[in-house]
């Protein structure tokens, strides 16, 4: 493809890029994030790192939204609450194993080798159960009915969370050492390594599953055309259940990670992280796996930079302002171009 053809195809993206560069060149000094970052790059790198690790958790939850949307065109609002129940699972696990901040690291690792998969299994089953009970009977009903059903399930699970651990945030013992592993070019702590060590394999594993396995192929086919997939001999109901199982497992895993990383479990996590994750999924192009992951990390970085250089109060204005700008230029989100990746 020659340059002229490429330019013709991506005119809007190029124009957007030129506008962004021009705005930064002219007004950069008065945009706090830009001027702050260029003034002290190493500190900026620390803040970006904080955002990346927070963003990874958001990305895992965002994958749940995007997986289900890809296959059913349904926003599974309960996904945020399933994630929250994952953090509750971690809290219960810590109590069952009697872990404290003085427990030796090997014991903690062994305990979590049990807690993480068990929680993921439970939340996977829960999510698939929600689909069976609250969404499948409504599959031929108007989309709004399923949407309301999803919102209802979300409220029910929020209250289950409150019943389980009470209305206030509950602290977990600090099990992850907060010692710095490196400080240059940016601070990386043991807790960051922990988040990465669980998140990245989950992300890669999911993408491999969807792209390379027979079941993944069935998921993609069902996403493209449910009825045609059925005619080709794909068990559509089973494939949809599998999608919900995967989404639930990811949400539960993210819940365990957040409980350890933030050191708390709270029934309101479902809402606060859920909204971010949903936004991240739309941002990256809902239905697109890579888009959700990139969107989550991008939002995490944006929130972190905003809290450091601007004011946490402006978080939603900054996040949704940028979301609107992106959607104006790319209405389908950053990565939604390739239909074949949808699952």
């Amino acid at each position: 493809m020659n340059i002229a053809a490429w330019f013709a195809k991506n005119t809007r993206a190029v124009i957007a890029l030129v506008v962004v560069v021009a705005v930064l060149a002219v007004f950069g000094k008065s945009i706090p994030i830009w001027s702050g970052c260029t003034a002290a790059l190493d500190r900026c790198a620390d803040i970006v790192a904080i955002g990346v690790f927070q963003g990874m958790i958001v990305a895992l939850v965002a994958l749940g939204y995007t997986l289900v949307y890809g296959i059913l065109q349904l926003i599974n609002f309960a996904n945020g609450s399933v994630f929250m129940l994952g953090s509750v699972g971690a809290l219960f696990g810590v109590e069952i194993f009697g872990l404290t901040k003085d427990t030796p690291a090997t014991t903690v690792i062994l305990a979590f080798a049990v807690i993480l998969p068990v929680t993921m299994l439970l939340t996977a089953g829960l999510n698939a159960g929600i689909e069976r009970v609250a969404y499948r009977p409504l599959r031929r009903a108007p989309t709004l009915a399923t949407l309301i059903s999803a919102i209802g399930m979300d409220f029910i699970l929020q209250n289950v969370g409150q019943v389980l651990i009470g209305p206030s945030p509950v602290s977990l013992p600090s099990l992850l050492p907060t010692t710095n592993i490196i400080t240059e070019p940016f601070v990386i702590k043991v807790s960051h390594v922990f988040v990465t060590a669980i998140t990245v394999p989950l992300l890669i594993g999911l993408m491999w599953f969807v792209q390379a396995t027979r079941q993944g192929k069935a998921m993609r086919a069902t996403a493209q055309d449910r009825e045609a997939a059925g005619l080709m001999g794909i068990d559509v109901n089973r494939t949809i259940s599998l999608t919900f199982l995967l989404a639930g497992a990811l949400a539960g895993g993210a819940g365990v990670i957040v409980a350890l990383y933030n050191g708390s479990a709270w029934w309101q996590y479902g809402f606060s992280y859920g909204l971010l994750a949903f936004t991240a999924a739309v941002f990256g192009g809902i239905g697109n796996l890579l888009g959700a992951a990139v969107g989550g990390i991008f939002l995490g970085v944006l929130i972190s930079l905003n809290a450091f250089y601007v004011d946490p109060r402006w978080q939603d204005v900054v996040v949704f302002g940028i979301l609107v700008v992106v959607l104006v230029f790319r209405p389908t989100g950053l990565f939604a171009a390739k239909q074949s990746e949808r699952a």
Partner: protein
Amino acid sequence: MKLTKVGALAAVAVLAFSACGTSGGGGGDKGTVQIWSELPRQGSSKGQTDTIVNAIKYALDARGGKVDGWTIKYTDQDDSTAEAGKWTQERATALATEAASTTDLVAYIGTFNSGAAKIVIPVLCGAGIAMVSPANTYPGLTKPGKGTADEPGIYYPGGCAHNYFRVVPADDLQGDVGALWAKDLGATTVYVLDDTEIYGKGVADVFDASATAAGLTVLGHDQAPGKSTDFKALAAKIADAGPDLVYYGGITQNNAGQLWKDLREAMPDIMLMGPDGIYEDAFIEAAGDAAEGTYLTFGGQTADQYTGDAAKWRDEFRTKYGPDSIEVYTIYGYEAANVVLAAIETASKAGAKDAAALRAGTLAALTATKDFKGVLGTWSFDANGDTSNKVFSGSVIKSGKFEFDTVLGQ
């Protein structure tokens, strides 16, 4: 037990009937009137409000449920929802509207949260119902110049008579004593945070101003909104500023535990101070180890520090409700109920014959309250409806428990 109660009731009813028949209402039973309390009865404030409700019942029981011949029917109203886990605007509005149309309601004890008071005061003001709060500490509710420009005038619309009183000292004093305490603790630079809500911002603004006035350097004043998922970047920003002490104006339910964890991770040796909004066990549960060493201010004293009448009341109350039955605001709930009952008595003795007259008389009597002898000592309501009682305590969290440290503001 049940039988004797029924019997007693029957006897009272017969007596009342005969009294009415013979002397035309001048005897032992003048009728039934209501008082309500409005508190968040679900969510993490429940532990605290349970004890306040007990204290109100205790005050009423001490008078046998009657005041100067009037039978007092007390209703424990709830302005929270299970969904929110704290008070909601919808519930507060609904309760205030219902109260305004309840003709035999003579006085209102509440609210617990200052935000709810903002909604309720003007509605009750229009209906001429006196309101006594055991826990609101936002200064703008009563004090001109301490809140926004139009406070407190907006709470008394159309020139209705001032109907709001509180038996706790307001936050301008709490922010004030906090700043002086920070100075005493050896801090020279402070960083101020608030949770963007009316209570938190109010107390943080006062701390900010008082700290500057006391000669401390305020390095910054930021917002830590409760819906934030974490505060790690904000903590990094504060660590860069390098203050000796961080002051947080806010409540536990706005994710204060997470804030504490993130601040401690970024600055292990920082001094942390907060107001009574985080003076509750739920805060220690939420912040875990990060809560250790936190300095807290609150109006009044811990139960163990009570002296005189308050100590006597504490012992009797614990005998009835158990050793853990007293939290910070419990005694204020008792004092609020007592000052209300005393005002009803004054109104009745001044000749109020029906519920409407009793309601108006109670409001007048509360406005005129001077040198009231209660468990908190002898105090008065000033022209703004504030108590003259100004004792504060400073506590420190040690080994996961609140420990009294010092008396402030004297």
